[in-house]
């Protein structure tokens, strides 16, 4: 996109020029001898630069946004009646095709008229960009002139600049809200389109999921898989996470702690694909061979366990290992937040260390630990790569955890990889699944955040 580089260079040059000009003007004011400046020359320079850049950025953004529609609008006005009189949908389709073929102007179209129309479209696009560039220039110049008029000895330029920067800071902070809003709106729109095609009741309570080949959108097996794997993960992660936090906080000698804490951080920093690969090459084969050994026992009926190469158990166990450092560090925070008086009091009354921990420390830290576990569950629900790689693709409800099983996240990936058009119910169902996932994790997160905030613990 040379256009983007061009725009960027344009902005940089304009900004630099405005900065220098503003500074020079301020310095000349300063040495004019009409009293001392209210604001330092740097603020003057920043003020002029901001006043110049802001209209330019606005104008460029408009140009980028209207780059497609406006030239197409003018093209439609010029088209002969036989095309312009077409129904709106067909007309739009025709213009869209022209526009996408305009990206490779060297490839000739079969129809001569289409070729001419495309040439005209390219000319119109060029004209629009030229006009846009000129408008940007004018906007920048206007901002520049206005700002220069403000530059006097007594003008409170610093206050203006600070106010502008403050607004920028606020907008940055509000970005998080915009992103959340973007997620909610896009999931709601695409999910809504899905539910206009598929009955929501069938989606939530249907027991057959076969989105790839037929149109069965019963998501219950996916919910089952997600919950089952999360449960296995938490069975692994909860005791290990909490106990290791307790050990490191209360028992461990200093040297061990200095070694173990960074090791936990390393474990937390390992990307989830690595865990997925670990599950494939080591954990899944081990679980499979254990399941086969159980099947071979004389008193176990034949084929009692499925013993698949991909299994819910493998994904769940590895996911549990992944969540351990997360639970452990949050539990550590919660333990730290317990006042030392409680600890000392219990010990001075003669309780052993483990009694103190079990009867005083853990109950006092309970809200924090519960929040840690909730956040752990939320992560387990949303974890994708481990289940994509190690859990399998079969949507089924089965009590046998050595069989392959699929989850909401794994299905989202399978549905959307290699697909960009969102018109089939197949791709739209991914958004419905994503909406469910978002809602569930939202509830868990909000609850956990409330607990964490109420008890004054650090942020998760």
């Amino acid at each position: 996109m040379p256009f983007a580089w061009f725009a960027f260079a344009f902005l940089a040059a304009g900004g630099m020029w405005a900065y220098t000009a503003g500074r020079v003007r301020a310095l000349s004011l300063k040495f004019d001898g009409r009293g001392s400046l209210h604001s330092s020359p740097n603020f003057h320079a920043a003020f002029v630069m901001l006043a110049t850049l802001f209209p330019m950025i606005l104008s460029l953004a408009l140009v980028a946004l209207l780059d497609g529609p406006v030239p197409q609008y003018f093209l439609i006005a010029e088209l002969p009646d036989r095309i312009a009189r077409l129904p709106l949908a067909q007309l739009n389709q025709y213009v869209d095709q022209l526009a996408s073929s305009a990206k490779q102007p060297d490839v000739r179209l079969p129809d001569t008229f289409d070729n001419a129309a495309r040439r005209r479209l390219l000319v119109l696009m060029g004209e629009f960009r030229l006009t846009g560039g000129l408008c940007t220039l004018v906007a920048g110049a206007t901002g520049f002139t206005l700002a220069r008029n403000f530059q006097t000895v007594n003008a409170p330029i610093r206050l203006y600049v600070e106010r502008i920067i403050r607004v920028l800071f606020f907008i940055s902070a509000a970005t998080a809200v915009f992103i959340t809003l973007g997620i909610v709106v896009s999931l709601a729109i695409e999910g809504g389109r899905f539910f206009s095609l598929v009955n929501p009741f069938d989606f939530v309570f249907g027991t057959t999921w076969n989105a790839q080949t037929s149109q069965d959108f019963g998501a219950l097996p996916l919910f089952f898989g997600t919950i089952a794997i999360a449960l296995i993960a938490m069975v692994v992660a909860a005791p290990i996470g909490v106990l290791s936090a307790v050990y490191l906080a209360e028992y461990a000698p200093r040297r061990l702690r200095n070694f173990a804490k960074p090791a936990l951080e390393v474990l937390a920093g390992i990307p989830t694909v690595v865990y997925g690969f670990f599950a494939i090459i080591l954990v899944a084969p081990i679980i499979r061979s254990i399941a086969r050994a159980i099947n071979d026992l004389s008193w176990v009926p034949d084929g009692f366990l499925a013993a698949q190469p991909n299994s819910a158990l493998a994904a769940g166990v590895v996911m549990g290992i992944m969540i351990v450092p997360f639970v452990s560090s949050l539990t550590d925070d919660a333990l730290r937040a317990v006042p030392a008086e409680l600890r000392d009091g219990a010990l001075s009354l003669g309780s052993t260390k483990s009694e103190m921990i079990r009867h005083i420390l853990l109950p006092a830290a309970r809200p924090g630990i519960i929040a840690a576990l909730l956040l752990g569950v939320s992560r387990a629900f949303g974890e994708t790569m481990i289940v994509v790689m190690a859990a399998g693709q079969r949507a089924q409800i089965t009590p046998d955890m050595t069989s392959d099983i699929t989850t909401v996240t794994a299905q989202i990936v399978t549905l959307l990889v290699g697909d960009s058009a969102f018109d089939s119910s197949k791709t739209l169902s991914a958004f419905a699944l994503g909406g469910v996932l978002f809602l569930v994790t939202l509830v868990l997160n909000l609850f956990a955040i409330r607990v964490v905030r109420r008890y004054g613990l650090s942020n998760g």
Partner: protein
Amino acid sequence: MVDQTARKKNPRSNGDRLRRRRLSERFFRSAAICAVGLVMSMLALIIYSVATLSIRAFTHNQIVVSLTPALDSILSIDRGNVADSAKTLSALNKLVADEIDRELARDTIIASDETGFARARLFAPVAVSHIAEVITKNPNRLGQTRSYRVPISSNLDLYLKGQLTDQNIWRIAETGIADHNMILSSDSASEFKISIAQGVPEPVLRALSQSNETRPSVFLETQSAVFKVDAYRDDHLSLRVMAGELADLKGGVWLRVVWTPAAQRAISDQQIAEVNLLKRKGIIRSAFHPRLWTSADSTFPELAGVLSALVGSLLVLLVTAFVAVPIGVMAAIWLEEFAPRSRLTEFIEISINNLAAVPPIVFGLLGAAVLLNVFGLPRSAPVAGGLVLAFLTLPTVIIASRAALSAVPNDIRIAAFSLGASRMQVAMDHVLPAAAPGVITGVILGLARSLGEVAPLLLIGMVIFVGEVPDGINDEATTLPVLIYKWSTGAERAWEPLTAAAIVILLLIMVLINLFMSYVRQRFER
């Protein structure tokens, strides 16, 4: 009180209780130690299993041949440019294949079974493409005889590394062969008989006695030839030439049993025979294989490398940093230094905290729906990927920067205010520099996290085949972790060590980032 009276009355039960309490203390303590030990051993296990697997990918067996690429054989190389790459490739292929034919004496061997001695493929046709590149860069090599390396196909490499099949080898000294002159059988020039004085090893006989479908392959090898052993009859092994020419029996012979039956392995008997002979002759050598670092992705494991993915990761990281760092730091400054206590502030804080815990894949959905479909960003490109990861990283950056800003002692603020600084001056000139080490650490930590992210990138189409190094943020690209995922799904066994090697590279990069981070931290804190 009750306890005390009980203690006085019954000292024995008191001792019991104490013992029980101590026991439970010990039990609890050992459970906690076990938990920590389990975590540590898991970490060690992950690193160990990946590292040992990856070692195999760093060396590769290569055919070392001396070639004389002349102008007429590579006609299409013209003044430093490959005019017709297909023609060049086939010419080079023929050169290498001819060389191997000569070493294996393929043309002197007469077809003796119905399949004939079809040239067994030892390397992928595109494996010679780097020779074309080298010659294109140095045209003066045309006509010179130099030694070139061609990586053999990945399955054969795995076989030579002992990963693909079970096999045993017995060496039999020259003196152990009863009849020094192998008896040429009358009916064919390619069938021989040999008898071994000390007796054929028992496992070899066992292998030869099995029925056809499950029968292991038995080879008899000399310094210059490889035979297949068909049967054991009348104290003789009946042999069939597979590769090479029989010179003499100096140095003895080897009996090799490949236990995995031909139907259950990816390589044929012919390939095994030829590869073993070339290895014995020193034509095939195991050597460090730099392709992992220097080449882009390929459909052949022996040619695939991480270079394009590394560049892709870098481009994505640049976009992410360019968006997430300024916005994140500015947001943190506003929240810590300017935000009024209001509903709005609280709402923003909650949405940031919530965003930090939204599953990454949901950000992928956002990217697919909004960035690709509404704003029309190119699919599979680092712009889209970087933006999605920026959304994902933003909360982490904000939370870490806020923690660093709030750790700045209030005295600094008060002192600056008392000297007449404005709020903005306090924040930008005094608090931010004091918090810089923390902010930088947080930012790098967030970026390092985003470096390992895969799930959202899958949804915006970054799991594609990228055969060339991307040259811009709008070009099709993939990232290192996505490549790891892609390779881990590869059907061939050879992808496994390669995936592990890519993981090692990724982890090394992360370690480097962490080291850099602690360096920055120390420097600033001094």
